[in-house]
């Protein structure tokens, strides 16, 4: 009688697989929504739109659902990192609360991909940083980017209008690129500002996103305005910007000023001061096409401007922390913000 060696092993595999599946199913809690294209249910409250609910001293107002908006479909996009996805979710959920048929299509890619997608009509709009728009799309040098948020927006909007697009007014908070490193490295080389890197940078490696190499508000600017040459520039995914510092593979890494990691972890990570202002800070402006804005009616711009009034720097950092540190989904963080700030029930 031949004993088939394969049967017991196969049976064992099947048992393990069945157990794993059973565990998986039993652990299946209430499914929380994922961040990719989901239709959020419109919350129906009072039916008359355009009415201002008076909240004492409030800057914003609670969002009311306008049934006239139900026939308008909007797709809100975002770029490919958490802060962008949170913003995308906030706008999507707010517009849905206002009665629109709104869904999200997040994490499209970098700014060039997002703009391309917008122009192709595949999304209705997405949040862009005014500084990025001015330097990456319209070819301004960093020094030409206005420091004042309103000026920057006006300048960007003027350029967008030439292409049939339009940008809404800016958020309270601004974010900028930054050269970051471990505190220990900064102490070792005595670095406080980016200019301090002169003479030292040849020994140091810089890690950044692939598009950073060519952007004037990133590596290209560091080379041009600070005259810095690095030992090497290595492109890595934006998501790994802290991992590469932590694993001590990168001496320097391109970070964002709104990153929650900078406030956490006992100051493990620090950023160098941008003394020559090569990294302009950008407030977020919502870019959309004029056609979509017209078809969507007045509530489109009104809701977006309304809902972003609460996005101060501390609030944005807190939201970033929830997603990047606590690993909440952007949708969860957005919902928490809308509720806590009183925009939705």
């Amino acid at each position, binding site marked *: 009688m031949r004993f088939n060696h394969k049967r017991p092993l*196969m049976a064992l595999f099947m048992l393990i697989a069945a157990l794993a*599946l059973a565990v998986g199913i039993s652990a299946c809690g209430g499914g929380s929504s994922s961040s990719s294209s989901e239709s959020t249910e419109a919350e129906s409250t009072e039916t008359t739109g355009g009415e201002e609910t008076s909240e004492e001293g409030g800057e914003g107002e609670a969002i009311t659902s306008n049934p006239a908006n139900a026939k308008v479909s909007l797709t809100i996009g975002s770029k490919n990192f958490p802060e962008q996805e949170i913003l995308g979710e906030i706008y999507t959920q707010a517009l849905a609360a206002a009665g629109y048929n709104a869904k999200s299509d997040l994490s499209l890619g970098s700014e060039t991909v997002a703009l391309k997608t917008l122009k192709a009509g595949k999304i209705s709009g997405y949040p862009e940083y005014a500084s990025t728009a001015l330097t990456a799309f319209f070819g301004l040098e960093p020094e030409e980017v206005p420091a004042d948020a309103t000026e920057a927006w006006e300048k960007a909007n003027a350029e967008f209008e030439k292409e049939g697009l339009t940008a809404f007014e800016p958020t309270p908070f601004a974010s900028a690129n930054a050269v970051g490193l471990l505190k220990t490295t900064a102490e070792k080389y005595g670095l406080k500002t980016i200019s301090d890197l002169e003479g030292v940078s040849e020994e140091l490696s810089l890690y950044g996103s692939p598009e950073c190499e060519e952007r004037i508000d990133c590596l290209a600017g560091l080379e041009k305005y600070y005259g810095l040459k690095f030992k090497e520039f290595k492109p890595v995914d934006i998501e790994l910007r802290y991992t590469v510092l932590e694993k001590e593979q990168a001496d320097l890494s391109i970070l964002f000023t709104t990153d929650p990691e900078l406030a*956490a972890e006992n100051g493990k990570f620090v950023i160098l001061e941008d003394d020559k202002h090569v990294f302009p800070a950008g407030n977020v402006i919502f870019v959309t096409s004029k056609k979509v804005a017209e078809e969507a009616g007045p509530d489109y711009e009104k809701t977006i401007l309304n809902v972003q009034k609460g996005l101060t720097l501390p609030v944005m950092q807190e939201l970033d922390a929830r997603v*990047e540190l606590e*690993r909440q989904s952007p949708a969860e963080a957005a919902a928490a913000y809308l509720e806590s700030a*009183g925009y939705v029930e």
Partner: protein
Amino acid sequence: MISALAGLPLAVGQVGEGFFKERNGSACVEHRSHLFCFEWAREHIGDYATPALQQLELVVISVLIGFAIAFALALLAHRFRYLEPPLLAGTGILFAIPSVAFFLLLLPITGRGRETAIIALSAYTLQIIYRNVMVGLHNVPESAKDAARGMGLTSRQLLWKVEVPLAVPEIVAGLRVAVVSTMAIATLAVFVHAGGLGEKIYGSGNLNFPTTIIIAGVIAIVMALLLDAVLLIGQHFATPWRRAAREATA
């Protein structure tokens, strides 16, 4: 709202008390280097259902299509022997091309999405299944074929009543390999926006979070093993004579 009870007006647009949390870094997920955070996994396991089903769908459809084509090609080559080497070479080329590259080669023609992924995955399975069907048909013992011819079976009946059934074990072996390999490769479908578990690995916020990578990977592996088991059981029922033979020789 609490504010109303306290008698203090809270403006809309200002977040409430307690919105800002103290983080002392004690939570598992706050550390990039923690390999697996059970708490987070337990809470978020439901998020993996849709991607997992998307991937399962991709794999099943692709293997079915690949099987249909490969089987047809093998029958052709069985009949017209001269076709065998070129078909083997042709399917071999499809197999050798890295799947990511294949997805993107199709991009200008079929665009982003599920169709592209399915075409590429089906092409990948062709060589595996084709080869196994050919081997299965080759290995049919002459004695069985002689006996069938002796009984007066036509060529066609010989094929479908004798050769193919006897080739089933080899065919199923090929299907099992195809299914498992395709499930692993289907994670790359994220690169053509076709969904699947790859979105939980490469999607935003995931690349620096080992827990989600592990969960997605394990789910893919488990699904592969389950499909493998299903096919094995299926084969067991499709070949009753092997069971009888085994019992006879026991």
